[in-house]
């Protein structure tokens, strides 16, 4: 199954905290068959965040975890109605979280390259703008797929 599907993208969450965002991401991950246990995914994302923030610029964050509960690599996108405090690099609250889930035993390196591609494309300001202004899940999916396909 694909690393990113339209079902992996959810918009408009109203979250009081980072943990609530992680909960939404983990639930999607379990529902779509990427992970076995939501709790383990949440803990993994929290642990990674403890090492240092994954909050980035312009309201973007790329939470990620490599975890035994994850069965196959996936990208989960969750956007928030309100900004969530993330100690991000530019101090802005996060509105778009693009989560990367990595299985403990990763056989093919191709998948990892996909994840890295997503990280790289976020370095381009125009991509961040496009994503911020996307009107629906399909638009977000199209933007991300365009870079994954390259």
């Amino acid at each position, binding site marked *: 199954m694909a690393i990113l599907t339209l079902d992996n993208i959810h918009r408009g969450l109203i979250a009081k905290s980072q943990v609530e965002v992680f909960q939404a991401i983990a639930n999607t991950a379990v529902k779509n068959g990427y992970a076995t246990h939501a709790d383990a995914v949440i803990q993994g994302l929290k642990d990674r965040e403890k090492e240092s923030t994954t909050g980035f610029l312009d309201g973007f964050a790329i939470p990620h975890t490599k975890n035994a509960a994850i069965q196959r690599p996936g990208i989960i996108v969750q956007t928030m109605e309100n900004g969530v405090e993330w100690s991000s690099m530019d101090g802005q609250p996060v509105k778009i979280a693009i989560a990367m889930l990595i299985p403990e035993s990763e056989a093919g390196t191709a998948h*990892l390259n996909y994840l890295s591609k997503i990280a790289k494309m976020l370095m381009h300001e125009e991509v961040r703008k496009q994503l911020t202004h996307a009107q629906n899940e399909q638009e977000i999916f199209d933007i991300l797929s365009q870079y994954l396909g390259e």
Partner: protein
Amino acid sequence: MAIKIIAATGCPTGIAHTFMAQEALEQAAKRHGVEIKVETHGQVGIQNPLTPEDIAEADGVIIAADKDVQAERFAGKRVIDVPVGKAIKDPDALIEQIISGNVPIFRGKEPVTEEKDVNVETRSGSGAAIGHTIYKHLMNGVSHMLPFVVAGGVLTAISFLFGIYSFDPKSSQYNEFAATLKTIGGMGMNLMVPVLCAYIAESIAKRPGLVIGFIAGMIAYTNGTGFLGGIIGGFLTGYIMLGLAWAFKKLPKVFDGLKAIFLYPVIGLFIVGLLMWVLSSPMEAINKGLMSFLTGFQHSNPVLLGIIVGSMCAFDMGGPVNKAAYVTGTMLLGQGNYYFMAGVSAACITPPLVTGFAALFFRKYFDQGERNAAYVNFILGSTHITEGAIPFAAKNPLTTIPILMVGSSISAILTYLFKVQVPAPHGGFLVLPVVTRPFMWVTAILTGSIIGAILYGFSRKHSTAQQTENREGIASVI
């Protein structure tokens, strides 16, 4: 001629930030019209590797990494060394700095740390940067030592289950299997100090440091300096080996092979070995002195005696000070004083329990590995294997050791006040059946351990908060 820059990026997970930094640097280079080649140290390994020619031709090097990217290769080049987050957040400043040429030349093994780059905002003064470097070296030693403590400690603890004298052929409890277990476990634990010493030195001076560090650690171990001697030995070795590298720099290239297999080990060992020997030889005298001092106190006020015994046992956990208290205790056992040993045992059991309870109560300030090690310490503490606390103490000795000393002192004071008698020299809680007032003794130890754990937990909380603050300031460790 166009300016050529090379860079190496890396982060612990190796999925996201490594490549974001690569992209950021490449874009910034394009904006400034300079050439750049970025080597990435990601989850899939090293990609786009820098060749010796790339390094030779480069006008400057940017290291944007929170992991080792083999910086030794860049000796003699102009090198900026920053956390990976810096390159993501402000790549232009780094490129501009290289273009300006205002970058110190990277000498030998010690990377140019962040405080030296002028264009980059830094909250941390040079003191903080040096502190960070020392902490990094120390942690390299501690993380390599930890499994030795756990493996050796647990096997030793298991052997005690066969009876605390099961290793002694003269005892009726003697069991060959248990004796073998204790010997094997002991060997694991005996390697602790050499491994700690070796990997501190390795972190500072790479492989030449590792070799001499192991031997310096053996000297520390043999002369009974305990883990504090191992730490001192590690730093001593590391910096002396760096000094040697600097001294040999002028030698022609043809001697490179000779340097690695002959000059560094032989000359290094000569200098470090003799120095370590001289530094560690007074240990026996210190040990003897402390013992006669302590024997004089055996009938003094229980509070004073408890403070002295507790502080000594927790101070170096297996080093000369601890040994003085322990040996005095066993000696007095021989003379029929069972009270003194009760306090020593309580004080020796307390430090590992402090770390165990702290990890239990203050879960979020310990990472997964530390928590597991801390929980194993319930077993090690309960069987009088004080060494379990060493990895925690070695991580931040100046704060942690005083806290452990307070915990152990409380345990010892209460033990003396409760007039507990312990007729066995080791075994921890396994000897409870022969202890007089066993319930009081356990209460004393738990009280000291829990108070110590609360203090230790708060110290961890405090240092975590400080780290977070630093991170926000310089957007470091991604």
